[in-house]
């Protein structure tokens, strides 16, 4: 029972929370444009900040795309550095509007190398307003730091429950300062690059034509976040189903286990149960005793399974790549878990009725004589 419920709980938690995280992290963006490569990788790296980017695209081309008639608005992002594994995102202030972000304290960046940080970043790195920090090259902490130009924290964002809570946001100039030639920046040169462009269409009719236009006619690629993430879930769905079937088999076996344990127990104790009847215990009372015994095994076993499932999930979250970007504080899984738990308890109850009925029908005189 414990093992079965642990696996079911884990499966539900992983599935629900991952889906919710992917949904909440995407602020209704229609398309992402970036360097050619895996479209899923582009979506994961530029929206969910999990994978590494496919490469860079020209900022000049990015600006052209943003002015395309099909595009309502676009936000360029530039990745490349991190601080204690929290990604530093060079972008413009529209990026924060995507997530309806508000400042908890401080102000927005005005100059290069000023930054605002997400609430989780502030909590876990202990960075505060007016504190300086040095970015590390790459998207995970390798120790290769940009010590010549530290960032300054000028604002801390309110919690949004999205990936923004785990990001350090700064201007594009800040990233270019660290990675591009200073003359290029001053001249707004064509050689400046960004990692990706987050776009929204004016209307949904562009959903097929615009990506085809980019993919066929440019050296860039356009990827739909919703399409790529649903493909990802289709790929992992098979494994999820196998885990679910496995856990159903294990829980079914545990029901059989409870049934045979109770039947065996009452068989061993039928003499004792008959004695209880001679002492004045009614059939209903003995029926209740057996039922309570069986349901105690089920309730305690399944509850321990729930707790273990939660603990294992937290361990996976802690050690996994996605784990850090999980949107915490989600409770959508509670309904599904409670439904599964209720079904398990109802089946347990029905399973326990079999030995209870057997005891209920026991002939005490014959039992005592035979014993």
């Amino acid at each position, binding site marked *: 029972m414990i093992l079965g419920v642990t696996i079911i709980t884990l499966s539900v938690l992983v599935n629900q929370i991952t889906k919710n995280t992917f949904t909440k992290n995407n602020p209704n963006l229609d398309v992402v444009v970036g360097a050619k490569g895996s479209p899923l990788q582009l979506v994961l790296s530029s929206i969910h900040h999990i994978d590494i980017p496919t490469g860079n695209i020209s900022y000049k081309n990015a600006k052209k795309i943003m002015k395309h008639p099909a595009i309502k608005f676009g936000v360029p992002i530039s990745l490349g550095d991190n601080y204690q594994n929290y990604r530093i995102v060079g972008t413009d202030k529209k990026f924060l509007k995507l997530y309806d972000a508000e400042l908890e304290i401080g102000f927005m960046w005005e100059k290069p190398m000023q930054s605002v940080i997400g609430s989780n970043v502030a909590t876990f790195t202990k960075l505060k307003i007016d504190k300086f920090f040095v970015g590390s090259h790459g998207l995970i902490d390798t120790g290769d730091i940009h010590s010549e130009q530290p960032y300054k924290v000028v604002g801390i964002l309110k919690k949004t429950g999205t990936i923004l809570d785990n990001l350090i946001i700064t201007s594009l100039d800040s990233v270019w300062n660290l990675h591009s030639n200073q003359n290029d920046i001053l001249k707004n040169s064509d050689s400046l690059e960004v990692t990706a462009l987050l776009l929204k269409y004016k209307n949904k009719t562009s959903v097929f034509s615009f990506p085809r236009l980019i993919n066929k006619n440019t050296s860039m690629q356009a990827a739909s976040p919703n399409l790529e993430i649903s493909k990802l879930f289709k790929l992992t769905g098979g494994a999820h189903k196998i885990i679910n079937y496995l856990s159903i088999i294990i829980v079914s076996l545990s029901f059989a286990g409870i049934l045979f344990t109770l039947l065996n127990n009452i068989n061993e104790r039928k003499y*004792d149960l*008959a*004695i*209880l*009847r*001679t*002492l*004045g*215990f*009614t*059939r*209903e009372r003995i029926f209740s005793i057996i039922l309570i015994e069986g349901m105690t095994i089920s309730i305690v076993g399944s509850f321990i399974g729930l707790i273990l499932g939660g603990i294992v999930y937290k361990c996976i979250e802690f050690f996994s790549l996605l784990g850090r970007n999980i949107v915490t504080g989600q409770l959508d899984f509670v309904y599904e878990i409670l439904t599964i738990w209720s079904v398990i308890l109802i089946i347990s109850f029905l399973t326990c009725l079999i030995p209870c009925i057997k005891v209920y029908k026991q002939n*005490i*005189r014959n039992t*005592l004589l035979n014993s």
Partner: protein
Amino acid sequence: MLICENLSFSIDGHKLFSNIDFKIKKEKDLLITGPSGIGKTTLLSVLCGLQIPTEGSIRYNDISLYSLSENKIDEFRGKQLGIVFQSFNLINAFTIKQNLQIANTAEGSQDTDNLYDLLERVGLADKSHIKVSNLSIGEKQRVAVARAFIGQPKWIFCDEPTSSLDDKNTDIIANLIKEESLRHKASLILITHDKRVQSILNFNEILRLGEVL
């Protein structure tokens, strides 16, 4: 008063006993005797509500036992009757104290003073924590007697309570049953072949089953 009228019992069409009539007044005793296999133990089971008679009725004061539902019979047995079975019918996995406590629970009482008092009277107060499976036959018999008197029953039924005891223990158990039934002002209905017990208990009424038939 316990009134039995026209009591009969058959197994697979074979009459074990029939047309038994007797009355026992309050605080009076009855000895049931007869040869082996005549149905003494079955009669006791019928009187205690453990086995339904083929015919006849049993009334405890104004309560007709077999007109009650099975649950009510169980409750009545728990509250009004004390039974000492021939094979003791103790829960071997329980301690002496637990065996008495479970009888106390069945009767609906939480009174532990009476429990310890009874254990002291049967000489097992210092062994209350010992499992029944570790007791001698004589000790088990004493536990069974103590358990029968839990809840201060008005009718005590004993089935060959001394069948496996030596003379010394027979005296102890017989005297114990006599003393406790007098102390609790209970009527005693006892099955025994044992002349020693019959002489100690000095019964008011005797039912000879073989002769009734």
